[in-house]
């Protein structure tokens, strides 16, 4: 299955991500989930980024929290709402929100 996951929080949901497996996995950081794409703790990026997946971050939610594309981990691609619509319809068969 091609699964797209909206990750909307920073302090919860990582355990769910750990247990998920899919033929193709996409993780889209939205809301406070954008901190996974931008923040390092104790010099380390979010462990979520170690998952075998394609990562995206919603630009609008990034900018509303004071971040820019330059702050984003190189494994994560910034996307717009329009891009997210294309991901939903073209790249992932099922989508979930955590």
């Amino acid at each position, binding site marked *: 299955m091609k699964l797209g996951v909206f990750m*909307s929080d920073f302090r919860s949901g990582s355990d769910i991500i750990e247990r998920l497996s899919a033929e193709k996995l996409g993780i889209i950081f939205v809301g406070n989930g954008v901190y996974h794409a931008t923040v390092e703790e104790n010099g380390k990026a979010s462990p979520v980024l170690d998952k075998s997946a394609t990562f995206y971050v919603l630009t609008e*939610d990034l900018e509303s929290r004071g971040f820019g594309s330059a702050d984003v981990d190189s494994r994560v691609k910034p996307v717009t*709402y329009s891009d*997210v*619509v294309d991901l*939903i*319809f073209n790249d992932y068969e099922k989508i979930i*929100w955590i």
Partner: protein
Amino acid sequence: MGKLTIGCFSSLVGSVSLDFAVKLSDAAVKKGHKVDLWVSGNATMLSKKGQKAFKDYSHLAKTLTELFATGNFQATACEACAEARGYHKDDTMEGWKRHSMDWYLASCFGADRVLHIGGD
């Protein structure tokens, strides 16, 4: 073009997930897709008429009005959730429907993609 059904549960006006649901709806409709939006729990307050716009505060009513005008967007509020919160049909914003959750289930079965956003 496809149909996207979004269910948004227990999110008040001003919450991140309700903002996300409406903005995603707007982007999908602008790309030619059809969108059904279901709100239940506290999210039913999104369907209340008379919402005022304040600076630096989420205001989705204008976007919803524009979405309804396209004919490619439907939004329905859980009738029981609204009534339980003391607001009634005559206080509902134009364009909104009120139904039981059967409406959401039927929409999900007819959709190409479903996004179910839980409470926050």
